């Protein structure tokens, strides 16, 4: 709990590396967390061979969701889009460096992944599906 607001999180929140909008893009998806009104959009550019060449996120939210979005995007750049499909809850916790998160904050942390996967699959995911997914 005490390291929820470690330097990494605060830094990425205040100065994200991958914030922005890609126009044009190959994939774009946007969703929100109705509990707190956090909203995240993720844009991707994907090469012929399925490699993610560019990615950016926009929207607004708490430090956890924003840092998770920034770190998530960093982790998928240059990767084949198929790999994104395999990402799960544990990967996000690992990226953020948390062992666990409470039932409320885990939704903030997973929102970017939910958006990303919905974009990649071209459909919406329910929280429960992502929450139960282990990479």
């Amino acid at each position: 709990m005490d390291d929820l607001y470690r330097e990494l999180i605060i830094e990425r929140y205040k100065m994200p590396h991958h914030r922005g909008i890609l126009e044009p893009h190959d994939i774009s998806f946007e969703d929100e967390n109705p509990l707190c009104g956090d909203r995240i959009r993720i844009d991707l550019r994907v090469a012929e061979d399925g490699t993610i060449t560019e990615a950016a996120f926009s929207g607004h939210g708490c430090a956890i969701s924003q840092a998770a979005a920034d770190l998530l995007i960093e982790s998928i750049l240059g990767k084949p889009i198929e790999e994104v499909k395999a990402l799960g809850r544990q990967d996000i916790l690992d990226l953020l460096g948390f062992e666990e998160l409470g039932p409320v904050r885990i939704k903030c942390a997973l929102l970017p992944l939910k958006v990303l996967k919905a974009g990649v699959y071209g459909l919406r995911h329910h929280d429960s599906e992502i929450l139960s997914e282990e990479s």
Partner: protein
Amino acid sequence: MAAETYKIFDITKIRADFPILQREIRAGVKLVYLDSTATAQKPLAVIEAMDRYYRWSNANIHRGVHTLGEEATTLYEAARQRVAKFIHACKAQEIVFTRNTTEAINLVAYSWGRSQLKAGDLIILTEMEHHSNLVPWQILAAEKGLRLEFVPVTGDGYLDLEVYDRLLEQHPRLVAFTHMSNVLGTINPVREMTEKAHRAGALVMVDGAQSVPHLHVDVQALGVDFLAFSAHKMLGPTGIGVLYARETLLEQMPPFLGGGDMIKRVELRTFTPNEIPHKFEAGTPAIAEAVGLEAAIAYLESVGMEAIEAHERGLIAYALERLAEVPGLKVYGPAANHRGGVASFVMEGVHPHDVAQILDREGIAVRAGHHCAMPLHQKLGAVATTRASFYLYNTYEEVDRLIEALHKVRAIFG
């Protein structure tokens, strides 16, 4: 402003009545509960009354002739009497027990609204309503083709009464609004607004979820036709709420839910509804919760609603003053003398969730989000806010701890 100036009652004694307030959130960190607007903590008297009921008198009501059945029925109806007296209703029959404020408002919409309103009829609401006083009307409006108009909220958090006057000229059938905003703390001029509505030929439904727990509310003096509130926000248990309605209206209204208890007689294809208020209480009600509500009212009365109101006025005035010291903090809503013990705010550059999370580390419970008032937040231009709210058990020292913790948030986020 010295804290002592506001000493209304012995706060140490009051706090000792609430077991949960002794809790440490982490070792050495005492709970500071600043979320009573969401739900209030319960005094031992309430917990024990419900415990005693289950240990000694538990039975279903209005049926068995056995001793327990009679005791339970007596306790349940005594609770109704107590509620009636507490809000100065003329008669106990004007008190309908529901699950909560939300269900009480839905009861008005589905029973009164569905039977009395027709296409083109106008309902006036306000921009500061809780979702529970918006959505039932939206549903009904869609079903019956009603018109909804909204009294705007001004920049400093009041209802725009000039617009209200103009809307009244369109002959609304109902005006429904909150007595006290759960976000801004604004106390609306219910009596004045009700008089005007009546003159325009409209009935008035007041959402008392935030006022009944904190202010002395007299339905006859206010003149309202319907009043809805929840036990859990006034030191009582969850699971029970109240709809007050004038007797003539309740007589006129068709049943809401059908089933046992709400009938006098049933045949295979027809039924005769029971008398009021039982006509609106289908199925086994929340009996232990009614007992708990009765105990909660007894507790509030023993302290005195005027004293509680004065204590909270002192706290909010002090809190607003101290919140102004925190750099980059914006507090929404009117001046202290026009609001209850609620302060919603945003800290520049920090998301309300993060504020609440860091306060939680310090043992301070506040709420972050849109507080079930998304349209109001849109109007305020804030996606979400952090909200601190006070009740009779809160202290000036707790306000100080809130301010200290907010300075810590500032330090973490730079």
